[in-house]
């Protein structure tokens, strides 16, 4: 995951690029077999360990998802952690420092 968090005054813009197939479950492979759905269902973010964002996603979010949100009250040096969990139960967390 690539995370960039930039503070401007008391608002911090966080941009996240995740690496994920986001397979809808509606596509078929060349043999005509349906490719099973595989997508991120939940995205959460923490500021210095405190939860600040919860989002739920469906399979229509694009492959390798991009997310931008704005956190209030963060300052340079604070830690922003972003976690996703997909419909297979796999999760990934990455952290960035607010600049």
């Amino acid at each position, binding site marked *: 995951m690539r995370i960039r968090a930039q503070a401007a005054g008391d608002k911090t813009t966080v941009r996240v690029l995740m690496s994920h197939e986001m397979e809808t479950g509606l596509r078929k492979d060349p043999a005509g077999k349906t490719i099973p759905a595989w997508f991120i269902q939940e995205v959460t973010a923490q500021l210095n360990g405190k939860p600040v964002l919860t989002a739920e996603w469906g*399979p229509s979010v*694009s492959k390798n998802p991009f997310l931008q*949100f704005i956190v209030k009250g963060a300052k340079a040096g604070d830690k922003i952690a972003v976690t996703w969990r997909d419909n297979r139960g796999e999760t990934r967390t990455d952290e960035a420092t607010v600049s």
Partner: protein
Amino acid sequence: LAAYPTAAFEAKTIADLMKALGAGAPVESKDVTVTAPDIAENGAVVPVGASTSLPGAKRLLLLVEKNPSVLSAAFDVNEFVEPSFTTRVKMGQSSNVLAVALMADGRVLYAQKEVKVTLGGCGG
């Protein structure tokens, strides 16, 4: 954490989605903003955003009316984040894209914009 709202993400129409969320009929509002391009050359990657200038939103949703399931993403609004979120979605065909704000007082407000897709995003 709350359970994943499967019924909401499987809703085929906006009316079914509102039923799944236990929400009322959405009303168009100038205080909700949807950001989306006029034309999307690649339906697999369409940048879309939802925001509201109103205090008291508890959830913001991004919908693509003509996708197989209308709901793309739902964002919880709390005191730690601005009610403004941007992501990218897949669109199978030209469609209205909606930003819907679920307000704490039960109101359901929306803004919509038509996006023309020249290459669909479902065939891969």
